[in-house]
């Protein structure tokens, strides 16, 4: 493995993603998601993607709604308390001939699957899943595909007897080995050292488990700056292939120390995503309309971005309101 990190434009970086790739999106539900990269994937009309976030947030629901996704292996897809993932729901509810498939997992087993991938191991053991329907072969939604699809493990789980100690039954979960890992961070060095403030979630492990790692960051900084305090750096450059400078690249999700969740975005998105035609109009306006990330930020406007800015000491914006039914009160303030 040789370090060969490249600085690319957003367009160039996303053009490296192929239709049918398995993609891990970094961050956690509505926090630090690689949204700028995801918007560009939609603009480039990527198709038949396999997604494996742990857990998934608006980036997954958006890609499903935009018709980019074939299959998800994810423990949770949602927008937390903002509201429900209507595109995800619509793709599964009362569907006779599904075009999209979802396999349920859990936070712990998803984490172990990506950890196994990062270690070059085919699987890891866990005490979770036993007793749950998530473990049952008869309810495995991918059971007909596993033997023929090289992107899927040939079974969901296996149970063995612990050969070393008490002989308990132990569940084995297969590694995740994504083609692409997309991460947004606060800072990245010119050679790919990634600095993340706040939770790092599973991003380090996902980067090591994936074949192509694309990191967007609020700013690209000299490596010498990051070498001053290596203990604050989350991912070494050896694991990073492509870096992109992308201010506000996690909008509308929260980025610790930089900006908070954009409740106005969630309000619009949730209203639009309830219906297929309204969602297509939303995509036209917010994703296809702006041809570049810069145009997207211009459309959002500096006033709105300013309202989201975090208090640098607290990491979040203490003044922002998060109840979508009371946002009007805030606008007037």
């Amino acid at each position, binding site marked *: 493995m040789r370090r060969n990190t490249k600085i690319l434009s957003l367009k160039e970086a996303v053009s490296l993603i192929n239709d049918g790739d398995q993609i891990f999106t970094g961050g956690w539900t509505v926090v630090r998601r690689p949204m700028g990269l995801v918007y560009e994937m939609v603009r480039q009309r990527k198709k038949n993607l396999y997604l494996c976030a742990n857990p998934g947030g608006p980036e997954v629901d958006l890609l499903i709604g935009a018709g980019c996704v074939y299959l998800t292996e994810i423990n949770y897809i949602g927008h937390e308390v903002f509201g*429900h993932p209507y595109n995800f729901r619509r793709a599964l509810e009362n569907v006779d001939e599904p075009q999209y498939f979802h396999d349920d997992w*859990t936070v712990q087993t998803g984490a172990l699957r990506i950890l196994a991938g990062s270690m070059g191991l085919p699987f890891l053991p*866990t005490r*979770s899943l*036993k*007793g749950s329907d998530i473990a049952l072969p008869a309810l495995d939604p991918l059971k007909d595909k596993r033997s023929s699809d090289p992107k899927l493990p040939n079974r969901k789980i296996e149970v063995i007897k612990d050969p070393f100690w008490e002989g308990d039954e132990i569940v084995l979960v297969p590694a995740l080995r994504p083609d692409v890992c997309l991460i947004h961070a606060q800072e990245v060095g010119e050679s790919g050292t990634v600095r993340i403030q*706040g939770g790092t979630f599973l991003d380090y492990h996902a980067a090591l488990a994936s074949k192509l790692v694309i990191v967007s960051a609020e700013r690209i900084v000299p490596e010498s700056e990051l070498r001053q305090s290596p203990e604050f750096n989350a991912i070494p450059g050896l694991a990073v292939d492509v870096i992109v400078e992308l201010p506000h690249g996690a909008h509308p999700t929260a980025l610790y*120390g930089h900006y908070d*969740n954009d409740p106005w975005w969630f309000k619009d998105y949730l209203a639009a995503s309830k219906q297929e035609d309204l969602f297509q109009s939303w995509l036209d306006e917010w994703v296809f309309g702006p041809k570049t990330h810069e145009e997207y930020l211009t459309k959002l406007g500096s006033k709105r971005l300013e309202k989201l800015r975090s208090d640098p000491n607290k990491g979040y914006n203490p003044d922002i309101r998060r109840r979508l039914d009371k946002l009007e009160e805030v606008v007037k303030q």
Partner: protein
Amino acid sequence: MNRYSSVEMMAIAGSRLITDGEAVLVGTGLPLVSTLLAKHTHTPNAVVLMESGLYDSNPESLPFCVADPRGVYQTPWIGSAIEIMGQFLQNKMVDIGFLGGAQVDRFGNLNSTCIGDYAKPTKRFEGSGGACDIAIMALKTIIIMTHEVKRFVEHVDYLTSPGWMVHQYPDGKLVSREEAGLWGGPYAVVSTLGVMKFHPKTHVMYVESYFADMGVTPEEISQNTGFLINVSQAKPLEPPTEEELNVLRRVVDPEGIFMKY
């Protein structure tokens, strides 16, 4: 008119089930509200854990989700799901798992996955998140949810998080939690009407207390439960104290994000 809502009473009843010093792994929403209320009143030394990796969270402002920067603020250490879920939880360091759900049955089995047939659901929810892991490996679990016939059901449509009678791998046969090799188990269900516990031998849910001060009766709990539930031991629950209500409204959830004032 009551001077407080049933959701507030539910959050308060939940907080009373936590003991000082316990490590509590919480989900977003009411579990978090109840646990932070306990932390600001009678359990200042409880250790609040969140599945995204947050440890000993003591937020100034209510976190919106388990990864919210508000939950990170001034924590003494931070890990990931590998540490919190793969190590702390699996290594029996979590005293209480605090969970919500869409459906619960008499054995405390929880569904947070779908309504209807799993292969073709009529309603799809966000999914387990860490709930299944927590229900399996916490030393005990507390469940908190609205009390309605459609939620307290004879059989859950999908068994996301195992309670006292679980689905055995690989055939799905109903077996006891112990037979499936699991420790822990549901300790209480806190609802908008009262607090339910589980019989120590049969592990069947019964009503321990009801929100008498709000006009709730044991009969009302029976009527809102989709399975036969024993109310013979039900006692009135102490109404909220001024301190509990004040802390809930002014400190824990002043915006009414979860309490919906």
